[in-house]
């Protein structure tokens, strides 16, 4: 039964990955999308950590005088430290963008934002992208 029961951790990882991707695709709220992205990244981290485990293995530190020590593979753990940091940075950047989008549009729902953009285009015509309005491109500044 190694097929289903022996590989149960891989099924959990796949389930988490699919949940994360579903949230990114199906939810309109920008903050929820970032959370879905986080879940997706966490599942990949779990994947690496799962493949590092050696059955019966301990931490990879050999005490004084010990001879035969079975330890888990430390390399994927080290790699995942980097991946966790990347996830934190991405989440922080994404949430900062959400705060600024909330201030600029007044809403954090993607369908409302798209509707506001389309209305802006319809009202001001295609000139919307260069007209000096509060939400569009103001005059350029003098070079630094």
């Amino acid at each position, binding site marked *: 039964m190694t097929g289903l029961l022996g590989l149960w951790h891989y099924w959990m990882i796949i389930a988490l990955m699919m949940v994360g991707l579903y949230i990114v695709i199906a939810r309109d709220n920008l903050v929820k999308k*970032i959370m879905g992205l986080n879940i997706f990244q966490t599942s990949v981290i779990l994947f690496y950590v799962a493949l590092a485990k050696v059955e019966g293995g301990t931490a990879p530190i050999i005490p004084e005088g010990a001879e035969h020590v079975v330890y888990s593979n430390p390399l*994927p753990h080290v790699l995942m430290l980097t991946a966790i940091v990347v996830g934190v940075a991405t989440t922080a950047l994404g949430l900062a963008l959400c705060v600024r989008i909330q201030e600029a549009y007044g809403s954090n729902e993607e369908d409302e934002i798209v509707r506001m953009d389309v209305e802006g285009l319809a009202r001001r015509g295609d000139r919307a*992208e260069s007209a000096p309005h509060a939400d*569009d491109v103001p005059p350029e500044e003098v*070079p*630094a």
Partner: protein
Amino acid sequence: MTEHLPALQVVVPMLAAPVCVLLRRTQAVKVFAVLVAWSTLAIAGTLLATVLDSGTISYKMGGWAAPAGIEYRVTIANAYILVLVTSVASVVLPFGLGSAGSSVPQDRKYLLFAAFLLCISGLLGITITGDAFNVFVFLEVTSLSSYALVSMGHGRRALMAAYSYLILGTIGGTFILLGVGLMYQMTGTLNVVDLSERLPEVMASRTMIVAFGFMMVGLFIKLAVFPLHQWLPNAYTYAPSTVSAFLAATATKVSYYVLARVVFTIFGAAYVFGELGLDRILIPLSLAAMFGGSVAAIYQTNVKRLLAYSSIAQIGYMTLGLSFNSLDGLTGGLVHLFNHAMMKGGLFLVVACVTYRLNSSMVDDWRGLGRRMPITMAAFVVGGLSLIGVPTTVGFVSKWYLVSAAVQQDKLVVAGAILLSSLLAVVYVWKIIETVYFKAPPEGGDPVAEAPMSMLIPTWILIGATIYFGLHTALTAGVASKAAALLLSGVP
């Protein structure tokens, strides 16, 4: 010191970024950043010269030998891309980062330069490293700094553009991470050379197909191959024009190099094209990109968005060259990579010049600019000619290689498609040229002066490169064909 050049190539811009944060004064930071960019160009040039002379350079990070340690490997293909990225950075930085439309207040401009230097160091790191996980790390460094750079454009739509770029880019990066993890699981190593040696034994397993699939999808997102290109038009349109110039000229090129490494070195062309049949997927997608991007560009009313859709078409040419799996095809792809970087970077800098004077990137507002900004518009014309592929420009060289590669493999329909989509490029380039030269300027506007010399020189350097290297092809096509031969031979 010269034996440490591979490490210095990445370390110099990476340590320059926190120095910018400490320096704070915008003028000092600007001068410092320009000097750093020029020094990276010097290092890249030296590396290219050394590699052309004496072969591949290998550098052990931390003194640990590969495959246990991380090594930086400089080959001809590598050094070509390093020179490309550093030269674009050296030209864009003196142009002025905060001048063409960013929403950063004057006293915090140093943060913009710090993010830019981090982006440069990330791009150089992706290119130069010989360790698969290190590629992911530098890829994320590049991506995070470019999300921040894109979000600094004027107007609130820059924020949504940066947000969707962030979501799609992170998914792409995580897929690449997953692919690397699956490869590590089967072979136990992360070093590119070691992977290429150990993979043939485990090639038959299903895990390898899944690993390849994940890496391909992740790289296609980063490269903006046809169905996964959604982030590109908005990101290039709403970012500050100088940032668009830099990203259009470098980010996708480096991802193309990683794609070539994964396909030809790690997995091997026999497996990828023979067993998995990547060309059956990539050729239709490339053709769709070439036609879809060009047709979409024809209908755009904003110059930056037009150039962005045209970029999607050009990336289609590059992936088409790779999918031919032949020397001429890959050479064509690499030369087109160079052409697109120079030409698109130059065209976006032209847009930056015009927005500096005119505050608008709408095609309608550019009516009659040919008389008022003659030198700038002449640059646009030359860049457009290189886009189409007129003889004496680099665009002609790359199209020549691509068409001959198609004809060699009896894919005459594909060869015809390449020529036909070049005609579509004529349509959208002519649309701008007609507006600029043959329409009367809008009444009631203020008189518009020519762009300042400090902006014209960088623009003309990039545009001039397309003509210079179209005539003296030794440095581009010569190096590209050596690089292609090295990649195709599968020697790591």
